[in-house]
C-alpha cells in the first residue's frame, strides 16, 4: 500500500531512532551461530533435527514482504533470521544441505509459511524422523506459549475492564472501544516522532487517551443518553464512530505498519524457545501494577464504589444520591486511558502499529468481557487472562492463522450456556 508523505517521514524518523538504539543494543547480546538480520526485533527461529539429532549447516531461506535472506543452522541445529516487518513469510530448507540418507520427504513439506501475529518471534522447526519434539519438549513449548499468553492476556485485560465498566454503567456495547486501543498507540507514535523521551511519550499518550474518552462522553454519549436513544441505536452509533476513528487513523498513518522506538534493554532466553526482552517483562509489570491500582480504586474509593453501585442498579444508585453522569464520565476517562495503555503495550508485543490493529482484537475483547460476565470489571480481568492464554496455547495444536477461532467459539459457547459469564449476576441476562 502506498504510504502518505507524513507517514513516510514519521516512519523514517522512527526507523533512524530505532536503528541507533538497536545498534547500541546489539553489542552485548551474544550471537548464536550465523546471525542474519539480528538488528531487527522480529525473528523467525527454528531447529533442524533428523531423528532427534541436530543438523549443522542446513541452509534455511526466508522470503516475503520484499525481503529475502538465508542462513545456516549452528551445531545445535538452531537458526534465526531477523526480518524488518511482520507479516507472512515463506521458510524453505535446502534439501541438499541435509544428510542424504535421511528420508525427510516423508515428514512434511520442505517449504512452509509462517505468519507474525501477536508476538515478535515465530518458530519454524524442521524435525525429520523419529524423536520428534523430544528435544524442545512439549512442556517447554507449552510454558513458552503460557508466558506469551499471560503477557497478551494482561494487555487484553487493560482493554477489557474498561469495555465492561462502560457496559455496566451505560448498557452500551461499545464497538468503538478497540479504536481507543489504536488511539493510544497512534498518539505514542506521533509523540515519539517529535523526538521526546519515549517514556514521557507513553505517559502523555495514556493521558491523551483518557482525554479522548472524556471528549467522547461530553460530545457524543452524554447528549445521546439525554436524548433517550435505545441501546441498539447507541450500539450502531458506536459502530459508526469506530469506522470514523479507524479511517481517521488510516488517514494520518497510512496503511503500513509503523514501529515505536525501542526502549532498550536486553533479551533473555529461557529453555530454548522462550525469549523475553526487558520491554516484555516491564510491560507485564506495568499491566499488573495498573490493574491492581485500578482494582483498589474500584473497591476502596468513593467513586469506585459508586461505579460498582451503578453497574448493579442504576436507578437505585441515582436514588441514593450518586451523581450518575459524573461517575459515568470518570468511567469513560478510565476506560479509554486503560485501553490506550493496552494499545501501547500491545504495539511493543505484536510488534508494530497499524490503523486497524484495534479492530483485530475487538472480538477478543468482547470474548474476554462476556466470558467474565458483562458489566463486571474483575470478571473481564479473569476473562482476558483466559482468552489470552487460550489464544497463545492453542497454537500448539492449531495453525497460527486460526488461533482466534478457539476464542470466538468460546465466546459463542459462553453466551449460549451461561450468558452471565463467570462472575456476572443473574439479572443481566435480559
Amino acid at each position, binding site marked *: *500500500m*502506498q*504510504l*502518505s*508523505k507524513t507517514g513516510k517521514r514519521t516512519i523514517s524518523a522512527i526507523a533512524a531512532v530505532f536503528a541507533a538504539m538497536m545498534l547500541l543494543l546489539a553489542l552485548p547480546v551474544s550471537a548464536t551461530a550465523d546471525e542474519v538480520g539480528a538488528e531487527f526485533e522480529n525473528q523467525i527461529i527454528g531447529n533442524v533435527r533428523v531423528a532427534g539429532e541436530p543438523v549443522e549447516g542446513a541452509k534455511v531461506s526466508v522470503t516475503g514482504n520484499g525481503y529475502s535472506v538465508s542462513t545456516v543452522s549452528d551445531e545445535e541445529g538452531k537458526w534465526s533470521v531477523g526480518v524488518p516487518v511482520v507479516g*507472512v513469510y515463506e521458510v524453505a530448507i535446502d534439501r541438499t544441505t541435509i544428510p542424504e540418507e535421511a528420508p525427510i520427504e516423508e515428514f512434511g513439506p520442505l517449504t512452509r*509459511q509462517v505468519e507474525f501475529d501477536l508476538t515478535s518471534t515465530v518458530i519454524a522447526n524442521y524435525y525429520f524422523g523419529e524423536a520428534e519434539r523430544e528435544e524442545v519438549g512439549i512442556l517447554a513449548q507449552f510454558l513458552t506459549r503460557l508466558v506469551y499468553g499471560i503477557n497478551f492476556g494482561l494487555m487484553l485485560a487493560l482493554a477489557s475492564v474498561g469495555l465492561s465498566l462502560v457496559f455496566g454503567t451505560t448498557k452500551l*456495547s461499545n464497538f468503538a472501544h478497540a479504536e481507543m486501543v489504536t488511539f493510544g498507540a497512534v498518539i505514542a507514535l506521533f509523540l515519539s516522532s517529535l523526538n521526546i523521551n519515549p517514556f514521557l511519550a507513553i505517559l502523555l499518550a495514556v493521558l491523551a487517551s483518557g482525554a479522548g474518552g472524556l471528549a467522547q462522553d461530553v460530545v*457524543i454519549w452524554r447528549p*445521546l443518553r439525554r*436524548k433517550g*436513544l*435505545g*441501546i*441498539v*441505536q447507541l*450500539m*450502531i*452509533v458506536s*459502530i*459508526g*464512530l*469506530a*469506522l*470514523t*476513528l*479507524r*479511517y*481517521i487513523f*488510516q*488517514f494520518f498513518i*497510512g*496503511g503500513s505498519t509503523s514501529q515505536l522506538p525501542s526502549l532498550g534493554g536486553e533479551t533473555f532466553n529461557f529453555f530454548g524457545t522462550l525469549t523475553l526482552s526487558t520491554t516484555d517483562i516491564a510491560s507485564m509489570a506495568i499491566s499488573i501494577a495498573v490493574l491492581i491500582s485500578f482494582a483498589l480504586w474500584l473497591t476502596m474509593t468513593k467513586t469506585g464504589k459508586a461505579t460498582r453501585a451503578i453497574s448493579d442498579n442504576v436507578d437505585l444508585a441515582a436514588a441514593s444520591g450518586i451523581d450518575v453522569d459524573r461517575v459515568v464520565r470518570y468511567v469513560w476517562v478510565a476506560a479509554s486511558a486503560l485501553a490506550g495503555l493496552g494499545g501501547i503495550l500491545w504495539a511493543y508485543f505484536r510488534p508494530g502499529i497499524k490503523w486497524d490493529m484495534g*479492530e483485530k482484537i475487538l*472480538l477478543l475483547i*468482547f*470474548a474476554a468481557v*462476556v466470558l467474565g460476565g458483562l458489566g463486571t470489571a474483575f470478571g473481564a480481568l479473569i476473562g482476558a487472562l483466559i482468552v489470552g492464554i487460550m489464544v497463545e496455547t492453542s497454537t500448539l495444536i*492449531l*495453525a497460527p*492463522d*486460526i488461533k*482466534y*477461532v478457539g476464542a*470466538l*467459539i468460546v*465466546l*459463542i459457547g459462553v*453466551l*449460549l450456556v451461561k*450468558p452471565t459469564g463467570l462472575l456476572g449476576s443473574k439479572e443481566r*441476562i*435480559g
Partner: protein
Amino acid sequence: MDWIQILSNTAESILSPVTFAFVLASLGLALHFGFAGLLNFGIAGFMAIGAYGYALSILRFGFPWWAGILVSIAAAIVFAILLGAPTLRLRGDYLAIVTIAAAEIARLLFLTNTFDDFTGSASGLFGYHNSFREANPLPDGFYGLGPFSYSSTDWWVRIVGLSLLIVVIWLLWALTRSPWGRVLKGIREDEDAVKALGKNVYAYKMQALIIGGVFGALGGVVYALPSAINPTVYVTSLTFFIWTALLLGGAATVFGPVLGSIIFWVLQAFLTNVLPALTQDGAILEGLTSQQGSTLRFILVGIGLMLIVIYRPQGIRGDKRELTFVK
C-alpha cells in the same frame, strides 16, 4: 477535473454487480432487522458462504453454475440453522456479538492455510467462470449506451444479478404483506404479546433468519460472478457498510434497502473519483496525498452512519411509527 468522466463513472455504479450484491444483502438484513427485529451482524458471513459455496461447488465438484447457486442457498440455510438454533433466544445485543463472531469464524476458516488446497486460503478462488459464461445467450460483442456499455459477458453478469434481485424484491414484498409477515412485525414490536396469541415465536424468527440469510448468500454469489473471490472482502467492515446502506434507505421497508444501497454506491463511486482529484495542485484538498483523499470517503461513511441513526433512525423511506429500534 474531468466532470464528464467522473459523472459517467458514478452513473456506472448503479448497474455494477457490487451494488446488486449490496442490495441483495441489505434486503436480507431488512428481513432480519427491519421486519423481525433480529440484530444480525454476521451478514458478511452469509455473503462469504454464498460466494464460496458457489465457487467451490463449481471448482471442486464440477457442478454447473446454476447448481452452484443452489449449493450456496443450501449452505446459507445450514449456516442460518447452526447460528439460529442456539442463539435466537438470546437478547438483542448478545445476538449481535454471536453473529459477528460466527461470521469471523467463517472468514478465518476460509482464510487459513490449513485448508489451502480446498479454499485457496489468502489468494482466494478464481477461474470458476466457464460454465456460467457458456450459458450466456448473448452473442459476443459490446453493447450499451454511454456509461452503460459492457461486453456480452458483463451484460450476462448484470442480467443474472438483476433477475435475482427482482425475484428477491418481489419475494420480500409478498412475504412482508402476508399473514406470516404481520406475525414477524408483531414479534419485532412485542414478542410476549405474539407469544400470548399462541404463535411459535422461535420458529418464526428461525424462518426469517434462514430466508434473509439466503438473500445474503445470493448477494455473495452476485459479488463473485464477475471476477474472483478475495477473502479480505468479507470482513466485519462489509457488514457495517451493509448496515449503513440499510439504515440509510429505511430498515423496515422493501424499497428502502434498494435505494440505500444504490445511494451508498453512487456516493462511494462519486467520492472515489472526486476526492483524489481534489487533492491535485490548486484544488481544495491540496496538500493531501490521493491515498488520504480516498480514505476520506470511509470517514464520511462512519460519520454518515452515526448521523442517520441519531437523527433519522427510520431511514429515508421509513415510517417512524415502525419501532425498529427496541429500547
